[in-house]
C-alpha cells in the first residue's frame, strides 16, 4: 500500500516526530510492498524536503502554502494530496497540531482514524495498538477498511536515518481561502518566572498524589534537605498550587537533571516527555502498576506520606 506521512514544523524548525513517522511508515510500506510518500506543507519547504530525504523515502511532496500551521489549509491540502497519490494509509503526528487537522481529514476522506498509536502491524489488514486508562492497559484495534488514518505517538519509533534518493515535487494544491476561517495571529512563550527547573541538578517533583495544597510543605522540606529544586506535574499547576515555571512535561519544561525524584506522579505520557532524559529517576508511588515505574531506575511502592518524612529524617 501507499503510505503518506505528513511532516510537522514550527517557527522554522522541522520537528523530530517528522522523521519518526518515516520509520513507522516505511515498516508498513515494506510489510505490504508499497511506497512511502511524505509531505511537508508551508514554511521553507525546500530545506525541510532535504532533511526529510532519508533512507526508504520514495517521494517527497512540498506544498508551498503559508509559513506556519493553519488547520484549514492543512486539512484541504492533505485531503487533496491523499487523493492525488492514491494513499491507502495516512500517518500524522499525535501532536497538538496533528490532532487539530487529522480528524478533519479522516472525516472528509471517510476513512477510519486511530489516534495516539504506539504500535502498528499489517497482516491482511491494519492493526493498531494504543494505551487506555493512563497507560495502565493496552488494546489492539483491527481496522476493517481498505484505507485509514493514524496519528502516531512521538518518540515511539526511532527517527529515520541515512540519505535517501526520493523524488521531490511541488504539489500544487487548490486552497479555497473562503474555507480558511481561523487566523493565527502570533505565538506566546509561557513561563519565565523565578525558578529555572531546567538548571537544577536534583529535582524533587510532586504530583496529584500530594492531595492537598498544605501538604506541599512536606515536599519543600524534602527539597531543602536535599538541596534540590521543586518541580511538578501538570495538575498542581492547573490547580494554581504552583507556578507554571515548575511544570515538567509536554506543555511545560523538558528537564534532564542528575536525579529526578517523582513523588505521587503516575507517569502519563505527556509528563514523561519532559523528564525521561534524566540521569537517574526515582519514583515513590503507592500504585505498583503506575507507568512511572516503567522508566524509573529506583522505586519505592509505598505511601509518600510515610516515605517522605522518613527520607527527610535521614538527611537531618
Amino acid at each position, binding site marked *: 500500500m501507499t503510505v503518506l506521512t505528513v511532516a510537522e514544523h*514550527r517557527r522554522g524548525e522541522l520537528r523530530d516526530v517528522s522523521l519518526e513517522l518515516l520509520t513507522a511508515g516505511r515498516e508498513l510500506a515494506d510489510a505490504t510492498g508499497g511506497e512511502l510518500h511524505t509531505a511537508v506543507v508551508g514554511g521553507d519547504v525546500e530545506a525541510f524536503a532535504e532533511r526529510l530525504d532519508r533512507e526508504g523515502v520514495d517521494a517527497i511532496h512540498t506544498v508551498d502554502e503559508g509559513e506556519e*500551521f493553519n*488547520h484549514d489549509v492543512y486539512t484541504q491540502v492533505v485531503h487533496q494530496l491523499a487523493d492525488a497519490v492514491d494513499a491507502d494509509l495516512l500517518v500524522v503526528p499525535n*501532536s*497538538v*497540531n496533528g490532532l*487539530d*487537522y*487529522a*480528524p*478533519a481529514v*479522516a*472525516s472528509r476522506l471517510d476513512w*477510519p482514524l486511530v*489516534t495516539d498509536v504506539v504500535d502498528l502491524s499489517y497482516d491482511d489488514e491494519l492493526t493498531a495498538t494504543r*494505551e*487506555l*486508562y*493512563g497507560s*495502565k*492497559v*493496552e*488494546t*489492539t*484495534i*483491527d481496522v476493517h477498511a481498505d484505507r485509514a488514518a493514524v496519528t502516531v505517538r512521538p518518540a515511539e519509533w526511532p527517527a529515520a536515518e541515512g540519505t535517501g534518493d526520493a523524488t521531490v515535487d511541488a504539489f500544487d494544491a487548490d486552497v479555497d481561502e473562503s474555507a480558511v476561517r*481561523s*487566523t*493565527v*495571529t*502570533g*505565538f506566546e512563550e*509561557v513561563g519565565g518566572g523565578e525558578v529555572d527547573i531546567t538548571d537544577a541538578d*536534583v529535582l524533587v517533583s510532586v504530583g496529584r498524589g500530594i492531595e492537598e495544597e498544605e501538604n506541599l510543605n512536606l515536599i519543600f522540606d524534602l527539597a531543602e*534537605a*536535599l*538541596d534540590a529544586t521543586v518541580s511538578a506535574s501538570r495538575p498542581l499547576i*492547573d*490547580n494554581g498550587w504552583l507556578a*507554571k515555571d515548575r511544570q515538567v512535561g509536554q506543555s511545560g*519544561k523538558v528537564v534532564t537533571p*542528575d*536525579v529526578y525524584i517523582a513523588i505521587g506522579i503516575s507517569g502519563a505520557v505527556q509528563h514523561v516527555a519532559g523528564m525521561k532524559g534524566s540521569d537517574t529517576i*526515582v519514583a515513590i508511588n503507592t500504585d505498583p*502498576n*503506575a507507568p512511572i*515505574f*516503567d522508566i524509573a*531506575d*529506583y*522505586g*519505592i*511502592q509505598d*505511601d509518600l506520606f*510515610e*516515605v517522605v518524612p*522518613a*527520607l527527610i529524617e*535521614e*538527611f537531618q
Partner: protein
Amino acid sequence: MKILVTVKEVADVDDEFEIDGLGIDDRYVTYDLNEWDDYAVEAAVQIQEAGEDVEVVAVTIGDTDTEDTIRQALAKGADRAVRVWDDALAAAGLLDPETKARLIAAVAAEEDPDLVLTGVQSADDGFGATGVTLAEHLGFEWAAVVNDLDLDREAGVAHVHRELEGGVEELTDVELPAVLTIQTGINEPRYASLRGIRQAQSKELAEYTLADLGLTAADIESPLEQTDLYEPESEGDATVFEGSAEETASELAGLLREKGVGS
C-alpha cells in the same frame, strides 16, 4: 446564544485490577465526570454568567447510570441536558470519535448551537479527536487544545490560545460557529453548591434514542474493532526498595548520598 457542552462519564481504574474480556472488571472501576469536560462546563457557565441570553446545554452519550454524572454539569450551571442512548449503542463495540461525533452532530442539528465546547480528550480512552471530528460533521470552524478563551459575540469571533508543546501558545482567531476543545487549567472549575445540586434535580434531562435523532444502527457501525486488552509487560528494570518506609527511605538516602545529593 446557545452553547453545547459535551460531557462524558469516564472510568478510573483502581491500583489493583482485573481484566474482564475487552474491559476492566467493574469491581475495580469508579466513574466520574471527565476531568477535561469539567473545565469545558466551567468555560460555558462563565460565558453564560458574563453575557446576556446564553443557554448552556450539556450533552452526553451514556446509559441511565451516567445520569448522576451529567447532573453534575447541571448542578454547576448548565440549563438542561441531553442524554443519547439506545440498545443498539449498548450492543455496539468500540465507540470511536467518528461514531460519537455522528451522534452529537445529530443532537447539534436539533439544538443549533453557536458554540460547542468539548474536553481535549477523555481520561479513559484518550482518543482526543471527537471535538474536531464533530466540527467537520457540522461544518463549523474549530480549535483544538484551547487554554485561553475570549469570546467576542458581536464580531462572532473567539480569540483563543492553543497550547502547543514546549511551553508555546498559538494565538488564533476562530470564526463562529465553532467547536473548541478545552484544556485543563483554562479556568478553575467550581464545586457544585448544595443549591445547585438541588436545582439540578428539577432541570430537564432529555433522552434521545437513535430513532429520535433520525439515525439507525447502521450509523453507529464502526470499521474499528477492539480485539484485545491486556496489561503491557513492564518495560522497566527499576530496582524496587522493599520494606517499611524507614527501611526504603534509608536505602534511598544511601543511594542519593552516593550520587552526591544533599551532602
